[in-house]
C-alpha cells in the first residue's frame, strides 16, 4: 500500500511542509514526518554523503534513511526555483539524484521537479503528474493544489505574526520563543536579528538551539520570516546586483534591515560550514557593516558537525556583552 508518504524533517520542510501535507492529505494520503534531528540521524547522513557536502544536506540524507524503513515513498522534491528568475541553491537541484545514489535501501521516492524560474506551465504539468500518482481525477488534483496554496498562505501569515515555523507547524500556534518568565518588564530586552537558513536555525540540533539560548540570555529574537516581505525585498535591492537565490536574497534583505541602526540591537548570522550562498551573503553583510557609520553589532557563527554547544554558548555570551555595551552607549 502506498498510503504513507515520508517527509524528511530537513531543508525546505521548514517552508513548505504545511503546503505539502495539505496536498497529499487532500489526495487521501497520510504524511509521516521523520523525527527530530539527532546525533544518530546526522551520523547516518554523514556516512553516505561526501565529506564536502554541507551539514543540512547531510542531515537530509539522515532523515530520508530514517524514513525509508517506515514508508514506501519518501517525498524528495527537486526544488529548483520558487519564483521567476531565481533559484534556491544548486545543491537542492541535484538532491533527488544524490539521495537516489546514496540511500540504497530506500524503497521509492517521489521527486517532482519544482521549477518556476521561467514558466509556470512546466510547474503545473509537474504538479499534475505528481497528483496522477494518487488519483485519475484532474479535479481532485486541482482541489489539492488549491488546498496546498491556502495552507501555505495561512502559514506565511502566521510567520509574519511573529510565530516561528516550529510554532506554526508543531506547537499548535503557541509561540514558544521570546517568552522569558519572571523578568522585570521595565528593563528593555535586547532584540537580536538572526539571519540564517530556516532549516538551520529552527532545527534545534543543527542550529544548536541558538534562538532558545538567546532567549534564555534575556534577548528577544527576530528572524527574516517575521519581517514584511516588502521590507525584505526593498532592503535586498540595495545590493548592486540582484542575488538570484530566493532564500539568500531574503536573508540578505533581512540582514541589511537588521544592520540599519535603530531596528534591532544586534545582528547574528548563523551559517553552515562551507555553504555556498552564505559565503557571499555573509561578505555582503560584512561589507555593509564596515561601511555604516553607526555600527550595529554583527557576528557570524558557523556550524558544522564538529561544533560543540559549549563553544557556541561562549561566543553568544561574548556577543551579548557587546550588544549590551552598545545599548548602554
Amino acid at each position, binding site marked *: 500500500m502506498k498510503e504513507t508518504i515520508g517527509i524528511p524533517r530537513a531543508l525546505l520542510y521548514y517552508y513548505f511542509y504545511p503546503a505539502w501535507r495539505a496536498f497529499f492529505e487532500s489526495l487521501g494520503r497520510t504524511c509521516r514526518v521523520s523525527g527530530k534531528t539527532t546525533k544518530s540521524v546526522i551520523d547516518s547522513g554523514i556516512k553516505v*554523503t561526501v565529506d564536502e557536502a554541507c551539514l543540512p544536506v547531510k542531515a537530509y540524507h539522515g532523515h530520508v534513511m530514517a524514513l525509508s524503513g517506515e514508508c514506501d515513498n519518501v517525498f524528495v522534491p527537486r526544488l529548483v526555483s520558487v519564483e521567476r528568475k531565481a*533559484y534556491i541553491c544548486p*545543491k537542492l537541484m541535484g538532491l533527488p539524484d544524490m539521495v537516489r545514489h546514496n540511500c540504497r535501501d530506500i524503497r521509492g521516492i517521489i521527486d517532482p521537479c519544482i521549477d518556476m524560474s521561467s514558466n509556470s506551465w512546466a510547474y503545473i504539468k509537474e504538479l499534475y503528474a505528481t497528483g496522477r500518482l494518487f488519483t485519475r481525477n484532474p479535479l481532485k488534483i486541482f482541489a489539492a493544489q488549491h488546498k496546498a496554496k491556502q495552507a501555505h498562505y495561512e502559514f506565511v501569515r502566521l510567520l509574519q505574526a511573529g510565530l516561528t515555523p516550529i510554532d506554526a507547524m508543531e506547537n499548535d500556534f503557541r509561540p514558544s520563543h521570546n517568552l522569558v518568565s519572571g523578568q522585570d518588564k521595565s528593563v528593555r530586552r535586547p532584540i537580536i536579528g538572526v539571519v540564517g537558513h530556516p532549516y538551520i536555525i529552527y532545527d534545534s540540533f543543527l542550529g544548536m538551539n541558538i534562538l532558545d539560548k538567546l532567549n534564555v540570555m534575556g534577548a528577544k529574537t527576530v528572524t527574516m520570516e517575521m519581517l514584511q516581505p516588502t521590507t525584505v525585498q526593498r532592503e535586498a535591492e540595495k545590493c*548592486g*546586483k540582484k542575488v538570484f*537565490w530566493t532564500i539568500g536574497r531574503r536573508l540578505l534583505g533581512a540582514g541589511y534591515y537588521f544592520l540599519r541602526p535603530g531596528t534591532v540591537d544586534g545582528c547574528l548570522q548563523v551559517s553552515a560550514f562551507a555553504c*555556498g550562498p552564505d559565503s*557571499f551573503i555573509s561578505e555582503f553583510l560584512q561589507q555593509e557593516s564596515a561601511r555604516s557609520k553607526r555600527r550595529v553589532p554583527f557576528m557570524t557563527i558557523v556550524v558544522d558537525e564538529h561544533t560543540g554547544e559549549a563553544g557556541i554558548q561562549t561566543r553568544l555570551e561574548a556577543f551579548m556583552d557587546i550588544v549590551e555595551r552598545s545599548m548602554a552607549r
Partner: protein
Amino acid sequence: MKLTFAHLGDYHIAVKALFETLGVDVVLPPPPTKRTMSLGSLNSPEFACLPLKIGIGNYLEALEMGADTIVMVGGIGPCRLGLYCEVQRQILEGLGCDFKMIVLEPPQGRPDRLLRQVRDIIGAQRISRLFDALRLTWSKLTAIDRLNKITLCLRPFEKRKGDITRVYEASLRRIDEAASPKEVQAAAGNARDAMKSVCKTEGRIGKAEDPLAPRIGIVGEVFMVLEPFANCEIEKRLGEMGVIVDRSIYLSDWAVEHVIKDAFRIFRKSKLLNEMAKPYLCHFVGGHGVETIGSTVAYANEGLDGVIQVAPFTCMPEIIAQDILAKISRDLGIPAMTLVLDEHSSDTGVLTRLEAFVDMIAMSKCRRR
C-alpha cells in the same frame, strides 16, 4: 583607461589580443603566484570558491601595476559565478581601491546587448575594428587549444623531461606576438613540428602510441581544469608520469556553446553530455556539474583508464557531481578520483595522490593484458 582581467590558463593571450586590437590599453596581471593566492584568500570570504579568491589576487596585483578598469563576466545563476562581480567589487572597494568594473552579462538571446556593452568599453569609433579583433582572438584561442591538445598527447613521449613544456611555452610567446591570424597559424604550425621533434616516437598525433600508457580524463569545474596554477599543474605532472591526458574542457568549444549559441538561442545546451549524464544526474545543477558527470560517462565509454575530477573547495555543483561520481565509477568500472583544492593545498600532497592513482591504474592495466 587601463584595462585588466583575471587569468584563466593561457587564455589571457587571446583576451589581450582582443582588447589591444580594439585600441584599449591592457594591464595584464602578473602570472599567479603564492603571493596572488595569499592576497586573494586573505581578502575573500573563507568559504568563497577558489576562482574568486585567485581573481581578487589578480586584480589587486593588476591595480598595483596601474590598472583602473576591470572587466569581468556576469551571470544569472544558479551558481556563485554570477555574483562574483558584485562580491569582488565590494571587496576591492572595501579595501579602498579606486577602479571601475565592467560586467559583461550573458546575452540570453539578445546579442545586441552584448554588443552595446562592448561599445561602451571601447567607444563607438573603434567598433569597426571589432570584426578584425574577433578574428585574431579566435585564431589565437583555437591555436592555444590545439597546441594544448598536442602537448597532452606527446608529453609522455618526450625525450627529455620538460621539453614539451618548454616548446609549448615558447610557442605561446610567438602566438602572443603574432599580429594577424596568418602569423598565428604559422606559429602554431611551427610549434607542432617542434613538439614532434622532441619526442621519442614520431607517430601520429592524437593516437596512443604506447598501448601501455594509461589514459586519464580530467573533468571538473571550468576554472580549475583550465588554470594550471590552481590545479597544481595536473596536466604537466600526469604527462611527465607517462599518462596521456584528455581534458574535457576547452575554451574554444565552451565559447561556441555558451556565447555564440546562447546569443542566438540555438541548442542552448551541450545536448550530448546531458544525455550521457541523464541516468545519474538528470537536471542542470549550475556550474559544470552535469558536464562533469556527462564527460565521465563519455570517458568510460571511450575506454579511458581513469578520471580525475578537480574542484574548488565548497563548489556546489562539483560536490553534487563528486557525490554521484562514486556510483558511476562502480557502475561503469572506471577508476575516479576527486581533488578538492583550496589555498591550503600543497603541491606535494597533490603529487602523492596523483602518483598513487596512476600506479593503481597502471597496475590494473597490466593485469588486464
